């Protein structure tokens, strides 16, 4: 019996004791009775729980070849601190992030050399057209914003990304329920059966991008995903001609947390999809160990568009490879309330008419 005292109640988490009257383990707190085998298997599930473990190999960092970075210039923004790289034939006057003037700092040097680059496939006109399409079909958009909106400068920026390849080895435990309703002569009954479900296995990931620029909003860059990795080519400085390139200022180590978080969520979701036949499934515990982790430093093409309206900055971004366009838009409060109250009046009249018709029939 001493061994039983170590078991935790799957229902409330309390310590379970053996009840001599029912001859079963029973929780003294919630009065739930269990079979001994059930508790043993649940206990073995719990003992398999372990903490996350993320191991990465960062050996893929490249070095600039001699003389390769000679033609590259570094500009710095005095406002946001952003550092922009471009070749000596490209004039950079404004920061692509905050739209403030930037000044030349000097020659590029000391950075890692990108492993790969995805060249721009869409030009500036495509970005302008995408912006127009983005503004269409938005009834709540202030008319002034649409009519008077003019983007001063559209900039093509190569944004630094860290790409993570990894294999996740996960052990996930779920709490699942099966609900059954039935009727007796006196009662309506709802029976809920609880299950402990475990899944262990592996899942592989390729090229998860995490932007390496602190000035670039993570959610903005994640919103224009995915990039087609098959379009990536070996980095050549010639690809920078006519475009700006951001310097990475978030190290591969610091970016890793974001990749780990996304890997963990995806792994839990993938394993969750194998738990079928239940009314509800919730994750109770998961441990994900990342192995064979490799990183690459790449430049991805992004068109950046900035505008200011009502003293608020609006930044839009377009995937320079696929054309996916994102950017939050302002909401006209007057239109919002007009649509809400006008719509409520119309809908109420329709609903009233329907109710009256039904009563008349």
């Amino acid at each position: 019996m001493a061994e039983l005292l170590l078991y935790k109640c799957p229902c409330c988490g309390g310590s379970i004791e053996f009840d001599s009257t029912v001859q079963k383990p029973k929780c003294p707190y919630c009065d739930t009775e269990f079979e001994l085998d059930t508790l043993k298997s649940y206990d073995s599930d719990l003992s398999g729980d372990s903490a996350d473990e993320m191991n990465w190999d960062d050996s893929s960092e490249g070095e600039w070849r001699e003389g390769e970075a000679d033609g590259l210039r570094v500009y710095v923004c005095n406002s946001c601190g952003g550092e922009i790289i471009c070749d000596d034939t490209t004039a950079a006057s404004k920061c692509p992030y905050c739209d403030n003037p930037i000044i030349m700092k000097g020659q590029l040097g000391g950075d890692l050399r990108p492993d790969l680059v995805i060249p721009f496939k869409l030009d500036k006109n495509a970005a302008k057209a995408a912006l127009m399409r983005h503004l269409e079909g938005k009834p709540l958009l202030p008319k002034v914003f649409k009519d008077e909106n003019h983007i001063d400068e559209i900039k093509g920026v190569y944004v630094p990304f860290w790409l993570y390849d990894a294999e996740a080895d996960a052990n996930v435990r779920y709490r699942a329920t099966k609900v059954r309703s039935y009727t007796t002569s006196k009662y309506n009954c709802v029976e809920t059966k609880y299950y402990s479900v475990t899944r262990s296995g592996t899942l592989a990931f390729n090229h998860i991008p995490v932007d390496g620029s602190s000035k670039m909003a993570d959610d903005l860059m994640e919103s224009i995903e995915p990039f087609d990795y098959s379009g990536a080519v070996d980095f050549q400085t010639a690809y920078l001609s006519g475009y700006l390139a951001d310097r990475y200022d978030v190290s591969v180590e610091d970016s890793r947390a974001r990749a780990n978080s996304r890997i963990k969520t995806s792994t839990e979701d993938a394993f969750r999809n194998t738990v079928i036949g239940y009314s509800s499934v919730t994750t109770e515990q998961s441990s994900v160990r990342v192995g064979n982790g490799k990183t690459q430093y790449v430049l991805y093409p992004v068109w950046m568009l900035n505008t200011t309206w009502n003293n608020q900055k609006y930044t839009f971004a377009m995937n320079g490879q696929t054309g996916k366009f994102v950017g939050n838009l302002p909401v006209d409060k007057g239109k919002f309330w007009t649509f809400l109250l006008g719509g409520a009046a119309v809908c109420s009249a329709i609903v009233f008419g329907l109710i009256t018709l039904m009563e008349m029939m």
Partner: protein
Amino acid sequence: MLGDSLRAHNAYGNDVRCTVKRIFNLFLSLIVTLTLFACPIFADEQYYYGDLFDDADYGMEYYEDDTEDSGILSRIGISLAVGFGISLVIVLVMRSKMTTVRAARNAANYVVSGSLRLRSQSDNYLYSNTVRTPRNTGNSNSRH
């Protein structure tokens, strides 16, 4: 002679009054029918003036029916609530379209196809709860 002519005149007058009343009732019925189509809020018998005239003719008193009033009010209340709810959902959907920048929660786009390998899996039954509700009242619950 005079009496006969007076009776005839009265009979004629009654016929005329009846005809005018019928035409007036018909006209009112037409207006009420059109009003019902245009504005269902008046689809209630207490506003049917033809009946009121009939009742008055027979010397019957008119009583307002409070239950009918509350029926209309509840219908208006339900309609406003449902209408506002529908409108709110529509406007919130429209508003959500204004926000296209969202952080990626997972890395589903980067999962290697067919790479999911399950090493072990188990589904263990733990316990069950049954909630019984009496069929007649539905007020008291018992839990086992």
